[in-house]
């Protein structure tokens, strides 16, 4: 009994409420600093295994839905409710009372009181001052005291006190609404073991009943990605590192998804043409939704939240990067599907992950320049037979970098890294043909001797063209080309380091680069003659050659033996929808209205009490005034009323 009384006092005390609010604030701040609801792998990388588990136990990755946070909110509701329960009777009693029994002695204690003498009759004085009170919106009660004096006890702004009740009840209502829409019922079912979060990526048909939520579920916030032309009757509620399957009381189909863009390339609107099919409907309900314009059906509101690829069909050219082949192989791909290239140990799996039709980028070095649309891109992974994968980002069209056009492909080994970019120069037809022709010609070892032979006339001074020197020259050119086509410039650098004394290295390097350049020119001319069917530049300009040799050199770090260029695509999009049922919403809004009314009442209704005590034995009235908040306004009001009363008593009529 003693204990429960103490507990009641503790819970209903303001100190307790303030402590709870402080904890809520601190927890909220943590939640804004630590990104919430990220994939768990990100946290694991960020914190390491030990702290990852520790924070996981504390529910740090979804603080606002963790059991302890909800418990604190529950405490807040309890504490505020008890506080209201404790204070309300007193407030209501106070609102009813006029305190007409106060006597002169106690009125004299007031800070704002004054005796006024008058010459008119007491009845007249009473009538006049009642008038004044009325003009100032006071309500009063008259009482004759035992000593014969007459008391007019008046008050105004009675509803200020309701402000207290309104604001506090509002907070309780808002919290209850919020708890209803939070996942409290699910939390309880999880604790009881009735529901289990599914973490595996499996088809809905294989998800166990324990991970499914029925159509009667009170409140939920689920997501659904619907490709164009498909339908679904379930959505997915994300819970920590897994999900629950929310069954819907209708079937939802997406007919079309559209993105409109501003002239600058920024998205202007996302729209989905939805069809709702329900046996209760005579005909399917068709409606277009967009951001800020959701659709509500059967208490479930459907929002446009995002979009992603819905399985775009890709047509690709796979260019060999290792051998002498200068023509691509045609390949078909589809986003979210895989393609196998090669066989056995060397087989590679290409996983197409994403396609973007628009990429608004600022390619110039000037950060202030306007970003513009650079066309489609695709993201894919190339996985070897050991399971190791690298991720690639390829742009379909060549990008203008510093005035030159390049085909750009980003490569990274893990999702945490930044992409490293390979830049392949585009030729005058904006194709890869010229580069690939050059690369293939250089990589054709059978041709190296002939290239070397041609170089003799171009590089070897005539005076030194004896048989021995020529042969030595030719063999060293062949050796150099072999090094370059097996490892690029870094391989050539290693060759120099191992065979040339340090003092001569720079000179030799210059010579070698010159030889490679001229050799490339020759190789290219030979290739043009051998492959007249290839549409390519008729000659190699210096800049193009330089860029080409650099990118050939970079190919050795590219990580795959082929380059995928996108030649055509058929775009299929998927709309990201959010489906919510939140019965607490109306409670929250009701609470919000109460809250605003309450705050207005507390701050802007001036509560005033006035006592006019007409003495029985003298023509004198004692005026006293009180307010539960004494500030500047109160002094003014007192002064005003006092003057008015004086004036009223002075006048004859």
């Amino acid at each position, binding site marked *: 009994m003693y204990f429960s009384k103490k507990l009641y006092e503790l819970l209903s005390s*303001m100190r307790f409420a303030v402590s709870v609010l402080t904890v809520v604030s601190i927890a*909220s701040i943590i939640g*804004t*600093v630590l990104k919430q609801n990220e994939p768990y792998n990100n946290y694991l990388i960020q914190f390491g295994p030990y702290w990852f588990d520790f924070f996981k136990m504390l529910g740090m990755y979804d603080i606002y839905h963790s059991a302890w946070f909800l418990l604190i909110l529950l405490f807040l509701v309890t504490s505020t409710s008890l506080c209201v329960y404790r204070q309300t009777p007193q407030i209501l009693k106070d609102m009813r009372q006029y305190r007409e029994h106060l006597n002169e002695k106690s009125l004299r204690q007031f800070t704002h009181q004054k005796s006024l003498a008058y010459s008119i009759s007491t009845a007249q004085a009473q009538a006049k001052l009642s008038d004044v009170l009325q003009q100032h919106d006071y309500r009063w009660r008259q009482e004759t005291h035992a000593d014969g004096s007459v008391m007019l006890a008046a008050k105004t702004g009675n509803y200020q006190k309701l402000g207290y009740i309104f604001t506090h009840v509002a907070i309780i209502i808002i919290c209850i609404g919020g708890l209803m829409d939070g996942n409290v019922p699910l939390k309880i079912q999880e604790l009881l073991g009735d529901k289990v979060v599914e973490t595996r990526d499996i088809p809905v048909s294989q998800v166990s009943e324990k991970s499914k939520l029925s159509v009667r579920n009170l409140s939920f*916030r689920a997501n659904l990605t619907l490709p164009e032309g498909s339908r679904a009757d379930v959505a997915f509620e994300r819970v920590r590192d897994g999900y629950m399957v929310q069954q819907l009381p209708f079937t939802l189909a997406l007919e079309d998804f559209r993105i409109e863009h501003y002239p600058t390339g920024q998205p202007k609107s996302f729209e989905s043409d939805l069809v709702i099919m329900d046996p209760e409907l005579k005909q399917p309900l068709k409606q277009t939704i967009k951001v*800020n314009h959701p659709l509500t059906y059967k208490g479930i509101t459907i929002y446009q939240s995002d979009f992603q690829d819905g399985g775009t069909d890709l047509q690709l050219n796979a260019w060999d990067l290792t051998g002498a082949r200068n023509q691509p192989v045609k390949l078909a791909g589809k986003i979210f599907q895989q393609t196998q290239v090669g066989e056995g140990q060397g087989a590679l799996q290409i996983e197409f992950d994403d396609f973007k039709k628009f990429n608004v980028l600022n390619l110039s070095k000037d950060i202030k320049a306007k970003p513009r649309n650079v066309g489609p891109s695709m993201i894919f992974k190339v996985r070897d037979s050991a399971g190791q994968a690298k991720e690639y980002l390829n742009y379909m069209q060549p990008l203008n970098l510093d005035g030159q056009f390049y085909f750009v492909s980003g490569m990274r080994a893990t999702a945490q890294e930044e992409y490293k970019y390979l830049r392949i120069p585009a030729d005058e037809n904006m194709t890869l043909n010229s580069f690939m022709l050059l690369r293939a010609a250089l990589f054709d070892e059978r041709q190296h001797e002939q290239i070397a032979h041609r170089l003799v006339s171009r590089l070897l001074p005539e005076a030194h063209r004896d048989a021995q020197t020529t042969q030595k020259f030719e063999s060293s050119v062949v050796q150099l080309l072999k090094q370059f086509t097996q490892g690029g410039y870094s391989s050539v650098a290693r060759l120099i380091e191992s065979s040339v004394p340090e003092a001569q290295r720079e000179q030799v390097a210059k010579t070698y680069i010159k030889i490679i350049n001229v050799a490339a020119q020759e190789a290219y001319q030979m290739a043009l003659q051998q492959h007249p069917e290839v549409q390519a530049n008729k000659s190699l300009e210096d800049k193009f050659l330089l860029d080409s040799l650099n990118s050939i050199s970079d190919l050795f770090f590219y990580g795959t033996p082929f380059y995928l260029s996108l030649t055509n695509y058929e775009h299929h999009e998927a709309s990201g929808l959010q489906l919510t049922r939140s019965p607490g919403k109306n409670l929250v*809004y009701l609470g919000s209205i109460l809250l605003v009314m309450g705050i*207005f009442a507390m701050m802007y209704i001036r509560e005033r009490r006035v006592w006019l005590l007409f003495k029985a034995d003298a023509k004198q009235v004692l005026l006293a005034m009180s307010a539960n908040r004494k500030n*500047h306004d109160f002094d003014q009001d007192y002064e005003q009323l006092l*003057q008015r009363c004086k004036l009223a008593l002075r006048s004859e009529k």
Partner: protein
Amino acid sequence: MQSSNVRRKHFWQARDWTDWLFSILLLLGAAGVYANYQSLMDGYEVFFLASSVVGFSLLGWFWSPIRSLIAGVAALSLSAIALYAGDLSLMQQKFLLKFLISSQSAVMWMNVLLILATLIYWLALFRKSAFTGKLATFLTWSAVVMGLTGLMVRWYESYLIAPDIGHIPLSNLYEVFILFCLITSMMYLYYEARYQTRQLGGLVMLVVSAAVGFILWYTFDRQANTIQPLVPALQSYWMKIHVPANFIGYGAFSLAAMVAAAYLLVDRGWGQKLLPAKALLDDLMYRSISVGFIFFTIATILGAMWAAEAWGSYWSWDAKETWALIVWLNYAAWLHLRLVKGLRGNLLAWWALIGLIVTSFAFLGVNMFLSGLHSYGTL
């Protein structure tokens, strides 16, 4: 006190002919807009137009300088629109547009006038010159006129870029900072007129000058003044009420913090002869925080309603939302201590001053350091 002042007039009795004239002019303006653009307006827009007549009438009745302000801003904005004649490229060609009332120039004038007003308020404070003080007040008013004109013209300019790009200039940090300067200055001007507190001008305008500094940096270093189209989430009516309500809150809290600074100075015996009395400062601080609190509450509720429509949930624990809650709790506690516990004095003043840090973080810090749904103005 004179007897005529003493008799309480009721609301409608207190209206004189200037009040009615002002309202009739507003009504005529709105009728003109309706007659010309009716075919382009949806139900919300008609409702907002009608509400703006009522709202601005009440505001003008409540505080008469608002009438001259609205008239001035309307005259300047309409001149700018007439000068543009539907062609944005005239911005660089017509003298008045280029140097005075294109949105960019008008905002620059606001910046200059606000800085100047701040300096002159300080000068007036130390020289105790009534005339200099009046000059500072006048400069602040001029800045408000120019800033508001700047926003109005910017609104029009955005439609000149392309009809589908046009939107109210409340959509990014640059635009709301202008709004912040305007609201804080106007609230200060109201209290200045009502409580004769011109000595406070220098302190209060420091906050506004800081915001001006930010605008200048943001304009010259980041070219933030260019008009950007709205992302889909912002294409909503709620923006027009949620954002201003929020900035009345921020403005009032900033004002309260500077009054608190004055209170603490006086309390230490510094500037006692220059600054207003502690009782007045205390009252001002309370008033300012209560106005701010009400608007901040309303803004947060409106924000929740908007979020329910745009993001599918009225509360997502987004960084901005969470910090708004923290700001709200902070001032709720402040008011609780004052109203329920009757606390006064230094503690509350320090609290109001430190509250500015919390408020600024919610306003600016969240955009700088945290990520979330409200990332419309990244730095």
